[in-house]
C-alpha cells in the first residue's frame, strides 16, 4: 500500500495546490515532498534485500485491454524512488529564493512530475509504465514552457516532440509484444518478458531498437541528444534539475527493466553497437563541453558524457556494469543537481552564465567555491566522492567487455577534468571583476540545500556498500536470467 | 421495333445532354435539358414504367426546370456572362471526362452474364404495384422524404429571403 501512497500523495497535494492556491505554496509543497520522503524512507527500511518484488499492488484496471494497475518495488526501483524523493524536496528548497509567477501551478506541476517519475520506477505493467513515462513529460514541458528562458517556445516543442517520437515507437513495440502474450493478452511484465524472449532474433532486434530509441532519446545517448543542451539551457533551473537529475534516469531504468530482460537476443546482437555509440558519445560530448562558453550548456554536455558511460556500462550486461550504473545514477543525480544549483546561484547573482564574464568568485565566496570544488571533484570521479565508485565499476565492466572500448571510455576521466577544471578556473579563480566583485557567499537557505548534497557525495563515495546491497540481488537476478537465457539459446 | 425506339431515344437524350453542356446560353441549356428529360421519360415508357414517366415529366420538366428558368430570368443571366475557361482547362475537362467514360464503361463488365430472376411481366411499373410498395415497405422513407422536403423548404426560405436591414 505504501507504493500506492507514494503515487497518490503527490497527486493529491498537487490537486490541492491547483484548487486552493495557497499563498505559501512553497512551504506547502515542501511539506508534501517531505512527507513523501518520509514514506519512501519507511519503505526503504521495510525493504528486504533480496531479489523479490515487494510492496506489490495489483488492481484490475482496463481488463479488456489486458492492462492492470500493477506496481511494486525491487532493489533497483527502490534506489531510484529514493533518489526521486530525496531530490524533489531539495529542488523545491532550491527554489525558495525565487518567486515564480503563478507559483501554485508551478509547484503543482513539480509534484505531478514527482508522481509520474515514481510511477515509472514502480510500474510492473508495460502499459502503466508507458503511461507514467508520458505523464512525466507533460508537467516538465509546461514547467519549461511557462517559466523557461528565451526562445523556449520552439525549444521545448522540439524537446516534447522528439521525446514523444521515441516513446511512441516504444509503445508500438510494447503493443507488438502484448499481442505475442498468450491467451487474451496482457501487459504484465513477466508475460511480456516471456513474449519477448519467444521472438525470433530478427524480431527481437526490431523490438530492441524500438525500445532503445525511446530510452536513448530520454537519456540522451549520442546521436539522439541534440534536444538536450537547448532544453537544459532554456528550462528554469528547477526544471533543468528535474530533467537532468531524475528524468534522465527514466531512460536508464528503462534499459534495465524494460529492455535487457525483454529481448535478450536483441540486446546480445546489438549491444556492441549501443556500447560503441555510447562510448563515442562520451568522448564527443566531453569534447564539446570543453569549448562551451555558457556554463549551463557545459554542464548539459557533461551530463551527456556521464550518461554515455552509464549506458555503455549497462549494456555490458555484467553485474558490475549494472551495479555501477545504479550507483552512478544516484551519484549523477545529486551531482548534476548540485551543479545546476550552483550555476543558478551564480547566474542569479551575476545575471550571466558566460564563462568569459565570470572569474574571481573564490575571493568573495569561499564557501560556494569549496562546495563547487567538491561537486566538481565528484563529477570528475575523484576517489572517495560518489562519482568514483560508479565510474570505476562502469569502466571496469567496459574493460572486461572490450579493452579498447574501455580505454576510450576511460578518457572521460581526462576530458572531464579538462572541462571541469576549466569551468572552475574561469568562473571561480583569478581576480574579481566588475560583475563578481560584489558577489555574496551562500545564504543559509542555500547551504541547507547544498550541505546535504556534499554529505551525500562523500557518504556514497566512502561507504557505498549498503546502497549497492539494496540493488545487488535484483541486479544479480537480471544478470542470471540473462545469462541463463543466453546459454539456453546457444 | 423496341430496339430501334431505344436507339432513337438514346440518341436524342445523349445529343440533348451534350448540347446542355456546350450551348452558350443558359436558357437554351435548360431547354435542351428538358428535351433530354423527355427522352428519358420515353425510355421509362419503353420499360413499362408509365407512372414513373409521368411523374418524371411533371417533377423535372414541370417543376425543377421551371425553377431553373425562373432563377435565370430572376437573375437576368441569359447572356454570355460566363467568363470562358481557358482552352487548356476545357481540354483537360474533356480528357478527364473521356477517361472517366472509358473506365466506367470498362468496369461495367459482366452485365451480360446476369440472368433475370423473373421474366419481366410489365406489371412492375403500375401505380397499384408501386403504391403498395411505397406505402408498406417504404413507408418510413416516404415520411422522411417529407421531412427532407420540409427541411429544404425551410432552408430555401431562410436563405432566399432578403433580410430587412
Amino acid at each position, binding site marked *: 500500500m505504501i507504493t500506492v501512497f507514494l503515487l497518490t500523495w503527490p497527486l493529491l497535494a498537487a490537486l490541492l495546490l491547483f484548487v486552493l492556491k495557497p499563498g505559501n505554496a512553497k512551504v506547502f509543497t515542501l511539506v508534501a515532498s517531505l512527507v513523501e520522503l518520509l514514506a519512501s524512507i519507511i519503505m526503504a527500511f521495510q525493504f528486504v534485500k533480496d531479489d523479490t518484488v515487494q510492496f506489490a499492488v495489483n488492481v484490475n484496471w482496463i481488463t479488456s485491454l489486458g492492462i492492470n494497475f500493477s506496481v511494486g518495488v525491487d532493489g533497483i526501483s527502490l534506489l531510484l524512488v529514493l533518489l526521486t524523493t530525496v531530490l524533489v524536496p531539495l529542488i523545491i528548497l532550491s527554489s525558495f529564493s525565487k518567486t515564480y509567477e503563478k507559483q501554485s501551478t508551478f509547484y503543482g506541476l513539480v509534484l505531478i512530475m514527482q508522481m509520474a517519475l515514481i510511477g515509472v520506477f514502480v510500474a510492473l505493467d508495460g502499459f502503466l509504465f508507458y503511461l507514467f513515462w508520458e505523464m512525466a513529460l507533460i508537467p516538465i514541458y509546461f514547467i519549461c514552457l511557462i517559466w523557461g528562458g528565451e526562445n523556449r517556445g520552439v525549444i521545448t516543442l*522540439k524537446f516534447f516532440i*522528439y521525446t514523444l517520437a521515441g516513446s511512441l515507437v516504444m509503445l508500438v513495440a510494447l503493443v507488438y509484444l502484448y499481442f505475442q502474450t498468450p491467451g487474451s493478452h496482457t501487459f504484465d511484465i513477466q508475460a511480456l518478458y516471456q513474449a519477448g524472449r519467444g521472438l525470433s532474433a530478427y524480431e527481437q532486434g526490431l523490438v530492441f531498437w524500438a525500445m532503445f530509441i525511446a530510452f536513448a532519446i530520454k537519456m540522451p545517448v549520442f546521436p539522439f541528444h*541534440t*534536444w538536450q543542451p537547448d532544453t537544459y539551457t532554456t528550462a528554469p533551473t528547477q526544471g533543468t534539475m528535474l530533467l537532468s537529475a531524475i528524468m534522465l534516469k527514466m531512460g536508464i531504468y528503462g534499459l534495465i527493466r524494460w529492455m535487457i530482460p525483454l529481448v535478450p537476443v536483441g540486446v546480445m546482437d546489438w549491444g556492441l553497437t549501443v556500447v560503441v555509440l555510447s562510448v563515442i558519445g562520451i568522448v*564527443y560530448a566531453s*569534447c*564539446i563541453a*570543453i*569549448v*562551451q562558453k555558457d556554463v549551463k550548456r557545459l554542464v548539459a554536455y557533461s551530463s551527456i558524457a556521464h550518461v554515455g558511460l552509464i549506458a555503455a556500462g549497462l549494456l555490458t550486461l*555484467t*553485474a*558490475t556494469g549494472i*551495479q555501477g550504473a545504479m550507483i552512478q545514477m544516484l551519484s549523477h543525480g545529486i551531482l548534476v543537481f548540485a551543479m545546476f544549483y550552483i550555476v543558478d546561484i551564480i547566474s542569479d547573482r551575476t545575471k550571466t552564465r558566460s564563462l568569459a564574464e565570470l572569474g574571481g568568485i*573564490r*575571493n568573495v565566496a*569561499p564557501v560556494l567555491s569549496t562546495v563547487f570544488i567538491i561537486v566538481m*571533484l565528484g563529477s570528475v570521479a*575523484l*576517489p*572517495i566522492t560518489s562519482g*568514483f*565508485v560508479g565510474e*570505476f*565499476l562502469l*569502466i*571496469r565492466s567496459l*574493460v*572486461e567487455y572490450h579493452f579498447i572500448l*574501455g*580505454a576510450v571510455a*576511460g*578518457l572521460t*576521466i*581526462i576530458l572531464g*577534468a*579538462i572541462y571541469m*577544471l*576549466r569551468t572552475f*578556473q574561469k568562473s*571561480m*579563480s*583569478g581576480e574579481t571583476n566588475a560583475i563578481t566583485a560584489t558577489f555574496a557567499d551562500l545564504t543559509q537557505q542555500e547551504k541547507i540545500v547544498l550541505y546535504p548534497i556534499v554529505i551525500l557525495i562523500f557518504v556514497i563515495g*566512502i*561507504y*557505498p*556498500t549498503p546502497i*549497492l546491497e539494496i540493488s*545487488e540481488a535484483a*541486479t*544479480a537476478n537480471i*544478470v542470471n536470467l540473462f545469462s541463463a537465457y543466453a546459454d539456453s539459446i546457444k | 421495333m423496341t430496339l430501334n425506339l431505344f436507339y432513337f431515344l438514346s440518341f436524342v437524350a445523349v445529343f440533348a445532354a451534350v448540347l446542355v453542356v456546350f450551348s452558350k446560353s443558359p436558357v437554351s441549356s435548360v431547354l435542351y435539358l428538358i428535351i433530354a428529360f423527355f427522352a428519358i421519360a420515353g425510355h421509362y415508357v419503353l420499360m413499362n414504367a408509365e407512372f414513373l414517366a409521368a411523374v418524371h415529366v411533371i417533377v423535372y420538366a414541370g417543376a425543377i426546370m421551371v425553377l431553373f428558368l425562373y432563377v435565370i430570368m430572376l437573375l437576368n443571366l441569359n447572356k454570355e456572362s460566363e467568363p470562358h*475557361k481557358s482552352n487548356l*482547362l476545357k481540354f483537360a*475537362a474533356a480528357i478527364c471526362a473521356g*477517361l*472517366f467514360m472509358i*473506365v*466506367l464503361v470498362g*468496369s461495367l463488365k459482366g452485365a451480360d452474364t446476369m440472368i433475370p430472376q423473373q421474366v419481366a411481366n410489365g406489371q412492375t411499373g403500375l401505380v397499384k404495384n408501386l403504391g403498395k410498395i411505397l406505402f408498406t415497405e417504404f413507408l418510413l422513407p416516404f415520411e422522411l422524404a417529407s421531412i427532407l422536403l420540409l427541411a429544404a423548404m425551410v432552408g430555401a426560405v431562410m436563405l432566399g429571403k432578403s433580410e430587412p436591414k
Partner: protein
Amino acid sequence: MVGIDFLISLVPLMPLLGFLLVALSGKSLGQGVTSVIACGAVLISFLVSVYLFTELLSAPEDQRFLTATLFDWIKTGGFSASISFLVDPLSSLMLLIITGVGFLIHVYSIGYMHDDAGFNRFFSYLNLFVFFMLLLVMGSNYLLMFVGWEGVGLCSYLLIGFWFKNQNYNDAANKAFIMNRIGDLGLLLGVILIVMNFGSLQYSEVFAKATTVDPQTITLITILLFIGAMGKSAQIPLYTWLPDAMAGPTPVSALIHAATMVTAGVYMVVRNNILYTLSPVSLELIIIVGLATALFAATIAIKQDDIKKVLAYSTVSQLGLMFVALGLGAYTTGIFHMATHAFFKALLFLCAGSVIHALQGEQDIRKMGGLKKYLPITYLTFLVGVLAISGIPPFAGFFSKDEILAHAFEHNPIIWGVALLASLLTVFYMFRLFFLTFYGKERASHDVMHHIHESPQSMAVPLIVLAVLSLVGGFMNVPEALFGSAWLSEFLAPVVAQSTALREVHHLSHATEYMLMGVVISFTLIIIGITYNRYAAKHHVPVAGNESGGLQRTLYNKYYIDELYDGIIVKPLYWISEKLDVAIERLAIDKLVNTVGGSVVWGSRGLRFLQNGGIGFYIFIMVISIILILTISVIR
C-alpha cells in the same frame, strides 16, 4: 594497550582529522592553533610510524607485515575492495619519510606562510595531502592505492593553484591535474586488468598468483601501471607539469614535488616488483624512459635561471635515475635513492624557499648572488644538499647514486655511461645554482637587500635536521664493498623476495666497484672545479636572450616541449572540439533533426496550395481520383 589495528589506522587518520578540524573551522582558528593542530597531527603520525617501524624490526623477517581492515568499501558483483591497511617494510619506510619529512616541512611552513592570508587553507591542504599520501602507501589493495594516488593529485592541484588570483598558477595547476589524470587512466586500466585477471585487488593475493597469469597480460598490466607512474613521477612524456608546478608555495614543492608525491611511481613499481620482474619488456621500457628522462631533464636544468625550476628539473632527472634502478631490477636501490633524494631534495627546496623568503619572492638566480654572508644557515645547509645530490662521499647521495651506477654497469656499460653523464650534469647545474646564488656580487636590488634577513627558527630548524639527514642518510645502506651491511636491502628483502627468487644476481667484484667510484668521484670533482671557476671565480652570470647557438637556445626553452604539446595535443583538441561543436553538432546532427521538423513545415507550406479554394479544381481532383480508383480495380 590499544590494538595494533587502531595504531595503524591512526597514521592516516590523524592528518585527516587535522584537515577536517582546520578546514571546517574556517578562519575561526588562529594561526597558532592551526599550526599546532596541523603539525601535531603529522607528528603523532610520525611517532606512531616510528613505533610501527620498531614493531616490524622486532618481528622475524618473514612476518614483517601488519594489517588492519576497517570496512568493505565497494562490494558488488563478486568483487570487493576494502578499506584496509598494510604496513610492511616498504610502506613503513615510506611512512617514516612521509611523516618525518612531512612534519619538518609543516614546521617550516609555519614560518614560510606566516603572513599569507590563506594560512589555514594551506595547512588544511597540507594535512589532506599527507592523509592521501599515507593512504597511497598504506593501502593493502590497488584501489586504495588509487584513492591515494588521485588524492595526492588533487592536493597537488589545490596547492599549485594555492594563489588562485594568478591565472598562470591556475593554468599550472590544471596542467598538473590533467597530466596526472592521463597517467591515472593508465593506472586505473591496469588496476582493472589486475582485478580481471587475478580476481582480487589485494596485494597479497595478486602477488601469490603472479606466476600463474599469462606473461603478455602482465606486460600489458605493468606498462599501464607504469603509465600511471609516468604521470605521477614526471617521466617522459608526462613530465612537463612538474616544472610548472613550482607555481605553488615552496614548502609544497619540497613536500609534494620533490620528497613524496612524485616518488609514488617508484613506490608503486617496487610494490609491484614481482609483476615487473615477470615482464622483461616493461623493465626495458622503464630503463629507456628513466634514462631518457634523467638525461633530458638534466640538460634542460643547465640553462634554467629560476632557482625552483632548476631544482624541479633536477627532481625529474633524479626520478629518472630511480626508474633506471627499478628497470634494472634493483628495487631496493631505487627505494634507497628515493629516500636519500627525499632528504636532500627537500632540503634544497626548503633552502631555496629560505632564499626566496629572504629576497621577498625573488626566484631568478641572475638577481641573487653573494648571499653567503647574509644567510649563513641557509648557505651551509644548501651546501650540504648540493654535495649530497652531487654524490660526494660521505653524503647521502653518494651511496645511493653509486649503487645505481654500479647496477647499471653490471647490466650494460652504455646505461652506465648515460646515467653517469646525467649525474655529472647534475653536479654541474647544482653547483652553478649554488655559486650563482651564494657567491659573487650581490645582484639583487638595493631595496631587497635592505630587508634581507636569515629565516626564523621554525624554518631554520627543519633545514638543519634535513641537512643532518642528508649527511648521514646514506649510511643506512652502505654496500659491502665499503664494509657496510646493506641494512636497508636486508630490511626490504621480504618485499622483493619473490623477485629475488626469480632473478639471477650478479655481483660486481669489489675491484670494479672501487674503480667505478673512483671514476665518478674524479669526474665530479673536475666538474665542481669547472663550475667554481666559471661562476664563483669569474662571476659569469647568464643573461636572458644571450644564448649563443641553437642548442643553448633550445635548452633554455626546454626543447620547446611545451610548445610541441601545445601544438600537437592541446590546440588540436580544442580545434577538434570546436569543429565538433560547430560542424558536427550544429550542422550535422542537430541540423538533421531540425530538417525533419523543417521538412514537415516546408511540406505544409507546399501542400496547402493544393487547397487552392477553387471548386473547379477540387472537382477535377475528385474526378481524377475516381478514375484512378476505378482503374485500380479494373486492372486488378
